[in-house]
């Protein structure tokens, strides 16, 4: 079983990209399960993902990178044993630090072959996010294998270039790609990079 963690701040487009990634994996013949995490006590995205035909487990009321670590481990083991997916796609809350999730699942989940982190960045709100939650944004980029700079269609070329440059400075060796999940622009390249 391989795991793909789709991280990124709230409202960056994680769920939309998750659905595209899951569709690409299932089209390739893989068996895919999804784990959705909401920090609030009421889930929203899990129902939407389920409507798209994907099996979903939901964890509410906390964050799987810290306060719901036990729940994540139990859920991953349950999914592995009961469903036997080739891929499990994890969408943590937008306040999660994916590096903590990586370490946790790598250390505790037997039979996990590969864990990849895709971090989604909101190009349109980049400056605003850095102003208020820079340490969180930085931590989400530091652990990424691939970074999708989403909503590229909502900013002009100069703004996009500035965001891409800043993201590349913060994300080490990660591959950084501009995309628009809304229009589909850049999505094929992103999905190829993740596969």
């Amino acid at each position: 079983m391989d795991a793909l963690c789709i991280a990124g701040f709230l409202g960056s487009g994680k769920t939309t990209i998750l659905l595209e990634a899951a569709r690409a994996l299932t089209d390739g013949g893989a068996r895919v399960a999804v784990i959705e995490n909401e920090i609030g006590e009421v889930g929203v995205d899990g129902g939407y993902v389920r409507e798209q035909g994907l099996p979903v487990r939901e964890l509410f009321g906390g964050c799987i990178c810290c306060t719901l670590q036990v729940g994540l481990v139990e859920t991953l083991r349950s999914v592995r044993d009961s469903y036997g997916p080739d891929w499990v796609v994890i969408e943590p809350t937008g306040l999660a630090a994916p590096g903590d999730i990586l370490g946790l699942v790598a250390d505790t989940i037997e039979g996990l072959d590969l864990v990849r982190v895709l971090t989604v960045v909101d190009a349109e709100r980049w400056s605003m996010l850095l102003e208020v939650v820079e340490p969180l944004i930085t931590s989400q980029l530091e652990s990424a294998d691939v970074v999708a700079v989403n909503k590229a269609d909502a900013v002009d070329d100069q703004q996009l270039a500035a965001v891409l440059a800043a993201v590349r400075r913060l994300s080490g060796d990660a591959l950084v790609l501009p995309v628009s999940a809304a229009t589909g622009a850049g999505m094929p390249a992103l999905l190829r990079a993740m596969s």
Partner: protein
Amino acid sequence: MSGAGHEHRHGDDRHRHEHLSHVPDAASPAVYAARAGLLFDPPARGDDVEQALRRFLAALSSALSAAGCTLVGHIKGGVNGAGGGLAFHLTRLDAAPAIAGGHAGPVSDAELTLNVIVFGVDEARLPALVQHAWAEGAGVAASWPD
């Protein structure tokens, strides 16, 4: 695993977000999530349900702005009834919400699902801000959780 959903909650492990050590104190998020029963009397057309939702989101945006909101994590949810559903999503107070879906036929009752995460607002004020915005904006009877 079946396609049906599975909610996983923990007793001792169900913590509040105040304990998220990686989120800086200065940017502590305020969270409010709830389901509310909605009663449309007389039954509303699908378009009217959507307009009520838009008025609510506009009222909530104004209230959050006045309350000192510095950043919207997200305001998202749905209005679901027997004849369909609306999904909504908002990440900026100065922009129109994204709303998808619709209701076929008259709507007499529905459920509002709401998940709000914002910064710069006292969390203790959020339930009242949301519920007042619904009452003033949507003008539709709602039963909120205690």
